[in-house]
């Protein structure tokens, strides 16, 4: 197989652009997200399950994306969900909101509306009063981004 001069140029330029741009976009935000999760859990690796994130599969408008989170818990004075951290790893800053529950909440469920800059994973990390942590991730496809404009 032989390459024409034009093909060679196209390939090298394309590859160079990919190498230069891709890591900066995809990994920088993820590092911030990992750091935020670590800070929230105190370094522990959260288990999956128990916490459920409810997001739409496709969000047409990134300016208001309905997000719900619910955690399985009896919510009594000795066994309740302390807080839930919501992160969006593709946003300029991944932090979205932190919910704090008490035994008076009755059920560890909350809904709000958030901004998403682009198609990305939304993450919920729940922390129980005994210190155990749980995580859930959902991908949301965003048609029109919700930052700047």
């Amino acid at each position, binding site marked *: 197989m032989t390459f024409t001069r034009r093909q060679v140029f196209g390939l090298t330029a394309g590859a160079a652009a990919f190498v230069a741009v891709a890591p900066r976009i995809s990994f920088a935000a993820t590092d911030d997200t990992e750091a935020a999760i670590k800070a929230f859990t105190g370094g522990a690796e959260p288990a999956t399950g128990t916490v459920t994130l409810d997001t739409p599969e496709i969000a047409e408008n990134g300016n208001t994306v309905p997000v719900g989170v619910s955690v399985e818990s009896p919510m009594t004075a000795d066994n309740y969900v302390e807080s839930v951290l919501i992160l969006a790893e593709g946003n300029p800053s991944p932090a979205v909101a932190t919910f704090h529950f008490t*035994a008076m909440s009755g059920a560890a469920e*909350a809904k*709000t509306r958030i901004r998403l800059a682009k198609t990305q994973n939304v993450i919920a990390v729940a922390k129980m009063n005994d210190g155990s942590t749980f995580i859930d991730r959902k991908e949301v496809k965003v048609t029109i981004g919700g930052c700047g404009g």
Partner: protein
Amino acid sequence: MANPKPRVKVPKKASKGEVITIKTLISHPMESGQRKDKEGNLVPRQIINTFKCEFDGQLVFECDMDPAVSANPYMEFNAKVENSGTFKFTWVDDDGSVYESEKKITVE
């Protein structure tokens, strides 16, 4: 800026020990600090950073918000009611302003 107007929906009546759903909304632009105006200057961040719900002085639910919460922040959460009382809702703005709202509930 127009004075943010809180709107809260709490059921008027509940039975003892019932878990009720509370919905709140407050009109606020939630300026993220990422947006630029026509001249290309960054619009400074101004958001509501904390929301709190108390029942007769006891904390029920609290939320720390970051700029990724949408304009006119909406919150839906639950509360377990054992007796009649008053829910107090507080929103704290970046500029230090505090917006408040109160709702009574009767437990039968």
